[in-house]
Structure formats: structure tokens, C-alpha cells
């Protein structure tokens, strides 16, 4: 009797979800893994099994490793900056300052603009507005477009990503701060805890669940960055700002090496999965209940 109704419940509630999950995620993923073992070029009728040849192609693709290394650099800088800035801003915006609702909305807005549009807007800012400022003031920092110098173009990418991502994280941190139990804070004050002690001993541990989710979101989004990369620099100057995701796309569709591109995508997936999995595991351990 019991098992029967369980089966029925399962069919009613879980099956539709499971079906979608399998149809759009699990099966394509497995199929994708299978494609890395074939020589399919996207067009041919036959797919020949070629073993791990695509992966040896990945090893030989120096540009992929360069772009992966660059992605690591980018991820580290972006994750740190976004979370520090978002945490600090969220802290300020929950102190009851004047117009804080307006500021919250304002900081969140960049996140609502799609990455492609954002990239074009900032491209205009970097290559026209800044250059004009440079011409007018003679500041050497703005004399030439940031986007034509490899390290400045990288800085530009980081700047725009931080500007875009912070808003979202601010929202999560704000929710976290508002969920802090006033009683605990008051008790801490009565016990004589001041600013810094309160922050490290009470606020941070209680905010750990927000930090877990924010770190996870920024990590995965920074690793998979494509839209801003494409529209802001497009890999320019001369391919020096091409991140891993963009390189994968270029490999598969511009160079038309589907197998190698797919294998690179798989490697990127594994890297991201391991890193964000580890992060979630360790930050979860730090979470406490008030």
C-alpha cells in the first residue's frame, strides 16, 4: 500500500522534473562526453570513434592553457574584489543610512543589463570617453585606449565584471545582514564586544551561509565568463584577453575542431566543478546557527 502510493507520488511530483533534468542536462552532457571521443565535425553523417585523440589535441593547444591560466588570474581577482566590495557595501546599506533603498536598487542595476550590452557600453567608455578625457587633460593613463594594451585590457575586463557582479552579491549580503538576529548583536554589545571583534566573532560566522552562496556564484560566473569578454575585448588585443570559455567556442566554431573544443569544454567543466565543490565544502563547514 505504502510503496504503491510512493510510486504514484514519485510519478506525479518528481517525474516531470526528472524528465526535464535528464532531457536538457544529463543526456546532452553524456552525449557531449561521448562526442569528445569521436571525430565528428558537426556536419558528417558518420562519427568515428577515435579514443583520446581529441584530448591529446587539447594538450597540444597551447593557447587553451594560456587562456585557462588567464582565467584563473581573472577569477582570483574578480572573486576577491566582488565579495569584499559587495560585503562592505551591503554592510553600509544595512546601517540605516539615508536613501539606502535607492542605493540598493542603484547598485543592483548593472546586473540587470545583459553582459553583451554592458560590454558595448564600456567599450565606448574605454575607447572613446577615456581617450577624450586623456586628450583634454594630458593624463597618460587615458591617452590611448585601455583596450589596445594587454594588461590594461585585462584590468578593464576585471573592472567591468566587478561592477556588474557586485550588485547581485550586494543583494544577497543585504539579505544576510537583515537576517542577523538583533538579540545576538545586542548581547554582544552588552558583553563589551566592539566593532572589529563583533565583526569577526559574531557577524562573519553568522554571515557564512551568504558567503558560501556568494563565493559559489562569483566563482562559477567568473570561470564561465563569455558575454563581457566577447563584447568588451573580443579577445583583443591580439588574443591576449581570450578567456577559457571564449577559447572553447572559438576552437569549436571558428577553427571548426568540434572534438577538441568539446574536450576543452569538458576539462573546463571538471576544473570549475572541483574548485567550486571544494569551496562549498569548506565554507559550509564554517557555517553556524545563531
Amino acid at each position, binding site marked *: 500500500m505504502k510503496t504503491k502510493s510512493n510510486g504514484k507520488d514519485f510519478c506525479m511530483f518528481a517525474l516531470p522534473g526528472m524528465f526535464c533534468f535528464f532531457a536538457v542536462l544529463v543526456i546532452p552532457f553524456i552525449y557531449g562526453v561521448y562526442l569528445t571521443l569521436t571525430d565528428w565535425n*558537426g*556536419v*558528417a*553523417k558518420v562519427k568515428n570513434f577515435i579514443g583520446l585523440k581529441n584530448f591529446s589535441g587539447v594538450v597540444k593547444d597551447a593557447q587553451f592553457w594560456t587562456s585557462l591560466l588567464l582565467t584563473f588570474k581573472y577569477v582570483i581577482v574578480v572573486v576577491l574584489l566582488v565579495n569584499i566590495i559587495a560585503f562592505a557595501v551591503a554592510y553600509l546599506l544595512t546601517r540605516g543610512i539615508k536613501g539606502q*533603498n535607492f542605493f*540598493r*536598487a542603484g547598485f*543592483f*542595476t548593472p546586473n*540587470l*543589463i*545583459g553582459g*553583451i*550590452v554592458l560590454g*558595448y557600453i564600456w567599450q565606448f567608455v574605454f*575607447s*572613446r570617453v577615456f*581617450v577624450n578625457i586623456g586628450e583634454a587633460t594630458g593624463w597618460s593613463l587615458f*591617452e*590611448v*585606449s585601455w*583596450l*589596445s594594451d594587454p594588461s590594461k585590457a585585462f584590468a578593464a575586463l576585471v573592472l567591468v565584471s566587478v561592477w556588474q557582479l557586485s550588485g547581485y552579491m550586494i*543583494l544577497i549580503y543585504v539579505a544576510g545582514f*537583515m537576517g542577523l538576529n538583533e538579540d545576538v548583536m545586542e548581547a554582544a554589545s552588552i558583553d563589551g564586544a566592539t566593532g572589529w571583534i563583533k565583526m569577526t566573532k559574531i557577524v562573519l560566522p553568522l554571515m557564512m551561509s551568504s558567503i558560501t552562496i556568494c563565493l559559489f556564484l562569483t566563482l562559477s560566473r567568473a570561470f564561465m565568463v563569455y558575454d563581457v569578454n566577447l563584447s568588451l575585448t573580443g*579577445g*583583443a*588585443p*591580439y*588574443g591576449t584577453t581570450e578567456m577559457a570559455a571564449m577559447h572553447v567556442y*572559438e576552437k569549436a*566554431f*571558428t*577553427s*571548426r575542431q568540434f572534438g577538441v573544443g568539446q574536450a576543452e569544454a569538458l576539462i573546463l567543466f571538471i576544473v570549475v566543478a572541483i574548485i567550486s565543490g571544494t569551496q562549498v565544502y569548506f565554507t559550509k563547514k564554517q557555517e553556524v546557527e545563531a
Partner: protein
Amino acid sequence: MRKKVLTKVMASGLAATMMVTTMTGCTFGFASDPDDPNEVVEEEPIDTSVDTFEYDTALSGTNITLLNSKAEIQVALEAMSQSYEEKSGVHVEVMPVTDGDSPYTKVVSLYNSGNPPTLSILDTTDVIALAEEKAADLSEEPWTAEAEDYLTYVNDKVYSFPLCIEGRGLIYNKAVIEEALGEAFDPESIQTLDDFKALLDKLVAGGIEKPISLAKEDWSLGAHHLQYIYETYDGTSEGAAEVINKIKDGSLDLSSYERMKEFMDAFDVLKEYNVAKGDPLGADYDEMAIDLADGKTALWFNGNWAWPNLQEAGAENDDEYGFLPYFLNNDKDDFANQMIQGSPSKQVMLDGQFASEQEQKAAKQFLNWIVYSEIGQQMLVKKANIIPPFKNNPYEPADPLSRDIYNRVQEEKAFNASAIVPNDHWSVLGAAMQKYLAGRSDREELVQSIEDYWAEQE
């Protein structure tokens, strides 16, 4: 309280999203085709009174699809399909490839979903990649006789219909040059690289400080500039293929290949007089058309597809613009210094895998209609503003750039070599060229990157 805050945030967020989506609804495109297909251009009337084309009545009622990857002719193609339907009863649905989508990716995904377009407008490399697997053989079609020099063969068979000729070179603005020189300018008087340098120096003396606009885009540098080293081998596509094979198998040493050296000499001259010399990789494509039309510069390396940009910048159909060749050396008899390159750039491929016989026939008739019917001929040139590769088409394009190419083709002052290179050639070697343009690599490094690139190809 908390709920209220959230509602407020969400409300302002929603408002902002809506605003952004309405704003982005207008114009966002890529630099390579900034044309607005909705733009109203004054149109030449199409004379439909004469039509000697014979329509196959059995095909009436057939539906076929055409995938268009040339955004600027979308409106023209729709008009053509409508005229064709009125006459033949065959409906041609014109589907645009959206901005930013690569036509090849689009076609491949349509094939994989089992619903490919009957006809698709593709680049030559795409056709070669797909031909034997997917395309119908068009070798026996009557129009092949009219476009002899412009056919693309894959193992001795024709799988594609050359839609247009596009040419490239150094676009000059005659009025600007004459004003700076203070005398009449005859483009034919410039015959060698030294002549060209002398002209540039005179322009500088005449007040145009940096007379050349040089696009930093990788498709311009990697495809349009660099491919001269293959295409000027002997001016034919076969020659280009031969030199590529020689580079691939190592029998031709690029560092001692004369054309490579000449190309870099020529490119250095362009680099030297580049208006964006201070920050060549910060050059803005859209500004180049404005600079040329306004006379800030006198020359722009580009092709006849740049006309819509120039027109937007204020150039008129009766202004005098034209092309100078890409001068490679000081030999007056070298064809590279006399001719500009013009080759069929877009090809129409007919699906041979999914399309029924009836659909294939209707599509073939459409292609023949473009070539042979008086209406199709007119519309190709006047509506789509295309330089037709077909000898029997008596109409001349209206804009000065296309007209210049058209006249050069007629006078045999154009060479039609088009190098068939792997699809990532423009992007990989475009990056190498950007590095060279920015002065961050030297000649040896550039040559080395080209050799490395070819060594990696199978």
C-alpha cells in the same frame, strides 16, 4: 518592512530591465555590417514590362527557403522573392541569419535539426566544407556558362552559385586628394610603391597629416591584408592554392618568399601613414568612414561593402571614390600594382540531402531567374546593389565603389584570385597581424606565426 524593501527593489529592477530592453531594441550590430536593413534608400524603379524567362508551371505552389547571411540585402531579397512568386508561383521564404551568428554555425545547426534551408548564402570556405556532404551538384546549370571565371570547383564539380563580386583595395576620396594636392588627381598615374609614397608625402605636405585609415579588426588584417601574399602569387585562385600547399609542405620558405617581403614593405607604408598611428589598436571602424568622407583622411583600406558606411557618413552616389591597388613593389609591369582584387565572396548552396526533387527544381529555377530574367537581372543590381558575376547582366551598379570594381572587371584590370584558407585563418593570423601593427612584434615573428599556423593544419 523587509517585504516592502524587496518589493521596491524588484519594482525598480523591473522598471530598469524594461527600459534597457526597449533601448537595446534599436541598433546593436557588429562592425562588419553596420547596415540597417530598414533604412530607406531612394530606389531605382524596376522595369517589369519585359520578361522573356520561361517558367515551369509544374513548380507553381512549391515552397522553398533561402537562408540569407548578407544582412544588407535582406530587403532586396524579399522583394526579389515576391517578384519571383508573382511570376512563377513558387514561394521563397527569406530567413535572415541574425547578427553575430555565424552563417556556417546556423546552417549546420539547421542540418542537425533535420530542417535545413533549401538555399543558403554562405562564404566560399563554408561551401567547400559542406559541398560533398550536403549540397546538390549544380555543374549542369545553364548559368555556369555566364560566370566561368567565378565558379568554385570542389573535385571538378560546381556546388554553388556565385552571388556577387566583391573587391578590395585602398579606397580614395578624389575630391579630398585634389584639394590637398591643389591639382587634378589621376589614380592611374600611381603605379608603384614609390609613386604611392610620393603621393602620401604630397598629401602630408598638403595638410593631411596622416592620410590613411587602417582598420584594426582581425578580419581586415588577417583576411583582407594578409591574404595578398597568397593571392598575388600569380593572380589566380589556383596559384593561391599552390602557394598555400607549398607553405604547408615546407617547400616554400616564407622568410625568403618575395611576396611576403613585399607585402610587409607595403604594410609598413600603410602603418607609417596611419591616422591612428599613436594607438593603432584603438582605431574605431565607424569613425573611418566619417574621416574619409570628411577629408580628415584621404585613403581607407577596405572593400566595396564599405559603401553603406560611407553613405551614412555623408558620401553621395555621384561623389568620386575609387580604389587604388595594394602596391607591392616598384615594378610597373607587376599585375599587383595595376589591378585590384575582386572575387565572388558569397555563394548560394542548394541542399541536396533533405530537399525534394520538386523543391530542388524550384530553387534551380530561382537561380536561373536571377541570371536570365530581365526582372531578376535588374533587381540583383538595382535593388541588392550587387556587382553581378554574370557576363549577360547588362546593368551597372550605382555606387562609385561598386562601379569602380565593375569597370575594372570589364576592362580586365582586376584579378579574381581568392585564397581558400581554413576558417580560423582570419582570427588566428589576424591576431598576429594586430601584434605587428601595434609594433609589438617584428617581421620574423610575424612570418614565424604564419609558418606555425600552417604547420598545425592537417
